[in-house]
């Protein structure tokens, strides 16, 4: 166990080191931060003085070592744009992203388990076929397109005139398919409830929740089909196994077999994949947040790239790196706890 954790820690440090060097190496060509900080008519000599003062003229390794030394002490420097410690800026944007991920995860869990189990139990039923068909469509629609379509339908509204308005059924169909719009599709709204520290929440007010709905659905859409298919596949496998057959022979009710015995064993690989996927979901938030202008870390990152806000870019990459490494480690640990046959040693599998 300790060996495993040490190994993991080394792994994490290696990852962070690689990220920091890469992030640092790309900084020069991301743009000139000085341009952002001074007025248009400021002469070059003043710019040069500022550049010198900020240490932007030092050789690469000097700048990197200075950065790394500070980073170890939790100091990622000041964001050029926000004029605040980069970590503070990230901390302020983090709750928005986490709430979005939380909303999406909730949708995924609530939908994928029942649908996945159902389509495993009744693989040939029309409903299961529909779910499987829908899930492959879901995989094929990129997350930003889902988001745009959601905005068009629920926020802007859609007036359908496809069917002949003169006939009763036509006008009925048109009216049924048309949508009013009006759902909020931009930002977090004004009804935020302050919880603690940097955490202002969308979760505790009607207005806040309304703003969370469309972005969460969009973000969930990318993972939901994967999970449905995964749960179905695992469940099918489990249902073929000897012990389920045995349980059936013993006369245990099918409901109990499905939801107590089979589901428990299904969830193991699902949790593994799920943990890793929730880590990658943080990356998909970049797309979702861009479309919905959700003021979370993803949007902040993209803005930072456009503004050449180097300390913020580097800090973001490091933080996301930490999130990935931590989720992966936790997943491995859970896997080890739930399934004792997996040995938590450092040996490559």
């Amino acid at each position, binding site marked *: 166990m300790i060996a495993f954790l040490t190994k993991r820690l080394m792994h994490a440090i290696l990852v962070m080191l690689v990220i920091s060097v890469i992030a640092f190496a790309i900084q020069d060509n991301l743009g000139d931060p000085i341009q952002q900080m001074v007025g248009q008519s*400021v002469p070059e000599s003043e710019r040069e003085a500022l550049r010198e003062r900020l240490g932007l003229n030092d050789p690469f390794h000097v700048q990197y070592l200075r950065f790394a030394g500070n980073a170890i002490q939790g100091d990622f420097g000041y964001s050029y744009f926000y004029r605040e410690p980069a970590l503070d800026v990230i901390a302020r944007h983090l709750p928005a992203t986490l709430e979005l991920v939380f909303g999406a995860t909730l949708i995924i869990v609530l939908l994928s388990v029942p649908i996945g189990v159902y389509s495993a139990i009744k693989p040939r039923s029309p409903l299961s076929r529909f779910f499987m068909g829908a899930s492959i469509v879901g995989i094929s629609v990129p997350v930003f397109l889902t988001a745009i379509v959601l905005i068009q339908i629920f926020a802007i509204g859609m007036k359908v005139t496809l069917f002949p308005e003169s006939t009763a059924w036509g006008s009925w169909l048109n009216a049924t398919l048309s949508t009013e719009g009006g759902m909020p599709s931009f930002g977090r709204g004004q009804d935020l409830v302050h919880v603690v520290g940097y955490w202002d929440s969308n979760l505790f007010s009607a207005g806040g929740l309304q703003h969370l709905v469309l972005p969460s659905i969009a973000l969930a859409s990318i993972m939901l089909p994967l999970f449905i298919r995964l749960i179905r596949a695992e469940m099918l496998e489990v249902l073929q196994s000897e012990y389920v057959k045995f349980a059936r022979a013993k006369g245990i009710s099918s409901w109990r077999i499905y939801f107590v015995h089979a589901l428990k064993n299904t969830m193991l690989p699902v949790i593994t994949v799920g943990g890793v996927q929730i880590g990658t979901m943080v990356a998909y938030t970049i797309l979702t947040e861009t479309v919905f202008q959700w003021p979370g870390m993803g949007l902040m990152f993209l803005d930072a790239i*456009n503004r050449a806000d180097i300390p913020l870019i580097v800090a973001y990459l490091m933080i996301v790196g930490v999130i990935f490494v931590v989720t992966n480690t936790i997943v491995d640990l859970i896997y080890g706890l739930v399934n004792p046959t997996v040995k938590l040693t450092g040996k490559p599998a």
Partner: protein
Amino acid sequence: MTFNKTLLASLVGATMTGAALLPMTANAETLRIGYSADPETLDIHEQLSGGMLRFSHLSFDPLVRWTKDFQFEPRLATSWEQVDDTTLRMTLRDDVTFHSGNTFTAEDVVWTIERLKESPDYKAIFEPIASAEAIDDTTVEITTHEPYPILLNLATYIFPMDSEFYSGTTADGDDKAEIVKSGNSFASRNVSGTGPFIVTERRQGVRVDFERFDDYWDTESPGNVDNIVLTPISENASRVAALLSGGVDFIDHVPPNDLERVREADGVNLVEIPGTRIIGFQLNEERIEAFQDPRVRLAVAYAINQEGIAQRLMRGFATPAAQFSPKGYSGHNPELTPRYDVDRALELMAEAGYEDGFEVNMIAPNNRYVNDAQIAQAVANMLARINIDVNLRTMPLAQYWPEYDTRQSDIAMIGWHADTEDSANFFQYLSACINEETGAGQYNYGSYCNEELDALVATADTETDPEKRQEMLREAERMLYEDAGYIPLHWQNLAYAARDGVDAEPILNALDFPYLGDLVIEDAN
């Protein structure tokens, strides 16, 4: 500690947010503003930017300020007279106090001018001023090196600071007056001005709270706003959504794509104002020989459909331009109008011997001006018609300026707002022959050079008779137009929107600095 609650309040206030904070107390009028940017700092001399100037008009007062039609309105200075060619004497109000309680005197004006001359962002603009002297408590004399006709334009930038408040050293031993770029100076955290609003709380990038200054000198002002909450909402669509959903009362920079939506929405009003920022292109004569031929430059000018861009891409949100100076500026020449004519352009190309055209590359920013990338692409399409094949690259602002500075492309887009609100400024930065020493033509990407034109502008710049000066500048605009030394597209409009009851129109101007001290809110909801 009567007024300087900034620090403490920001600690307390760090935990609050949004509209939830604002219980509507009985008669107090609160204005909730959603601006595209908040002031970068509280030190008004640290950075020259729109956001900072807006803030200056909230917590400070200028000596004089612009009216809607570009006249001067007395503020802290009540009258002024030219003593001789280089000296301006200004009489100041005697009933003004700073937020700190100190009395405003001529010494504060002198102190402020000296500080402006130290500021990296302002020193270039204030270079013409040689010195300032306090004659008595309410009289100040400003002397320039040369006769300087637009000294009053500069006076709109002089927001007297509380010299007593900003003098001395902090507990850490730092000079309270020092200007530190992106640093943590005393002045960047503490304010004492004469303006209508006191900063009560500030979180960079989150919100700034203001409270009306009880002892504000301008008792004539109709303004009835007691509190202001300024929230920066940098994303265009979010800002519009915040207004439409009632989250804020007043927003700036409504994007062209949302104008229709805001115009038609119930309960909000759109206020559109022709702006003064010229958007246009510069042709690099150093790299493309053809651009040294005035006929080719004219062909480019003839090939561009300014009206089409203003109507389609900008949705009427721009005034098509054929010169630098917008209406209201002294140099604006009403005779110069856009001249879209592809046939004429082709003729000119043929005359110059370029009927087969040539290939160029073009750069433009994609997040600086309204619809900048789309405009650049449209211009590229238009130039294709006269056989100039454009290879367009667009990039974010942070990459654009370094790229622009290298002058390694053939055509570049630039928008320019004259900091002095004066026509000569355009010429000095954008079209003057490049001179490294004087800094002339610092943004003359194309290395266009017309010494006759430069001489005319130089003469105008020392001409103190406004009539004669205006004539010269108009002539300068005509010369540039005929020589096509700069390819203007349009002046980008400004659009604000406010909810019903917030009477924004009277306090807005083409300068993009709303005079919120005079804002009237009619209802009490």
